[in-house]
């Protein structure tokens, strides 16, 4: 399948897309995301064991009510880990994804006025980011589209429908797996907290710290 010319064209489109984003955002912002994004991923991989130990110990210490006696401290180490070996990789990837989003905000803040004028350099660093995402993000998307039959060999015109169907199946499984892990009352509590958080953040950014127009009058 590596000889398919469509794959080569698709790859070119992919790189041009990232290159154009880089040219538009400026090479300094893109370089920051590339360097720190790659470095933090490697750093997280290196330190995942220590990080999991710190979170497990600290988390269980807090969950058991900050014990100071010997028995209580022993129960901290005997408690089931918050981040086990099974979900360690998911946790590292989630943490890295959050850092990556933060890096885009950071770049916008640091290079507000001068993000690098060279568009060709921006294009190149954008392509480098494309390669980084291809290796770290796209590979995690493959299982959605490579199960059962090969999507590239589906009859022409049905591919979009199949992509939508597979995405729907994937979300169904993910939703059921997530909600299956917690009880109905916990699901409801989670939803209420989310709603209050959204409203709180929206209302705070609207009214917090600034005088509203009505009050100025």
């Amino acid at each position, binding site marked *: 399948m590596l000889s398919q010319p469509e794959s080569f064209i698709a790859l070119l489109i992919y790189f041009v897309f990232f290159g154009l984003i880089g040219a538009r955002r400026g090479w300094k912002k893109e370089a920051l995301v590339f360097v720190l994004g790659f470095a933090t991923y490697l750093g997280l991989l290196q330190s995942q064991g220590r990080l999991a130990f710190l979170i497990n110990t600290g988390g269980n210490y807090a969950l058991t009510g900050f014990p100071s006696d010997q028995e209580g401290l022993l129960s901290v180490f005997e408690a089931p880990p918050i981040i086990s070996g099974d979900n360690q990789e998911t946790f590292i990837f989630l943490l890295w994804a959050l850092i990556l989003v933060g890096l885009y905000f950071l770049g916008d803040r640091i290079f507000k006025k001068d993000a690098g004028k060279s568009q060709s350099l921006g294009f190149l660093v954008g392509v480098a980011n494309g390669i980084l995402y291809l290796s770290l993000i796209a590979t995690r998307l493959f299982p959605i589209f490579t199960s059962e039959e090969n999507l590239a060999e589906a009859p022409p015109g049905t591919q979009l429908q199949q992509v939508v169907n597979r995405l729907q199946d994937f979300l169904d499984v993910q939703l059921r797996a997530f909600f299956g892990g917690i009880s109905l009352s916990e699901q409801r509590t989670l939803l209420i907290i989310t709603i209050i958080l*959204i409203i709180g953040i929206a209302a705070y950014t*609207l009214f*917090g710290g600034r005088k509203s127009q*009505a009050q100025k009058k």
Partner: protein
Amino acid sequence: MGSIESYFTTIALVFVFISIARGYAKELSTTVIILVAIFLLDVIDGRLNPLLLTLVQTVFPDFSTATEASNLLLCSVYSVLFIGAVFANYSGNTLNLGGKQAGPPVGTYISIAVGLMNGYFFAGTLWFYQALYDYPFRFFGQGIEQPLSATAQVMVELLPQKLATNTGYLMIPIALILLLRAKG
């Protein structure tokens, strides 16, 4: 007709687009109206039913209160009242909470979140009345795909009216908005 979760998702997405276009400063006022409408409908729901059915029976003596038609009638009344309340906020003088919206990209993300939340409240309420009156649109020969899929069965337990034992909790977000509005 298709699966109910597809309709739910589509309506929620429409609300996201509306929220991005209008901005969350205006959409937050819609949230207030939606929450008040859900609360008021929950208060009158059930109490109004005997009156409505008696009224219809007076006009149409052949109308039986224990049929699918009565379910369809009640479901339609509450759905129309709710849609009317939300539509009135969009079409008439919008409730103005004031305040200054955060600029992009943060403002856009908040608009998306508020739009999703409004979509959940709006589509969730319409779904709730469908479920409460046993999906009565099959009266017309077509209705929501039955039985509900496994995902829909999970979602139906998380509709706005089912989040707590009474809808009085809906006043908490409104109180939060008013408190921050008074502080600002």
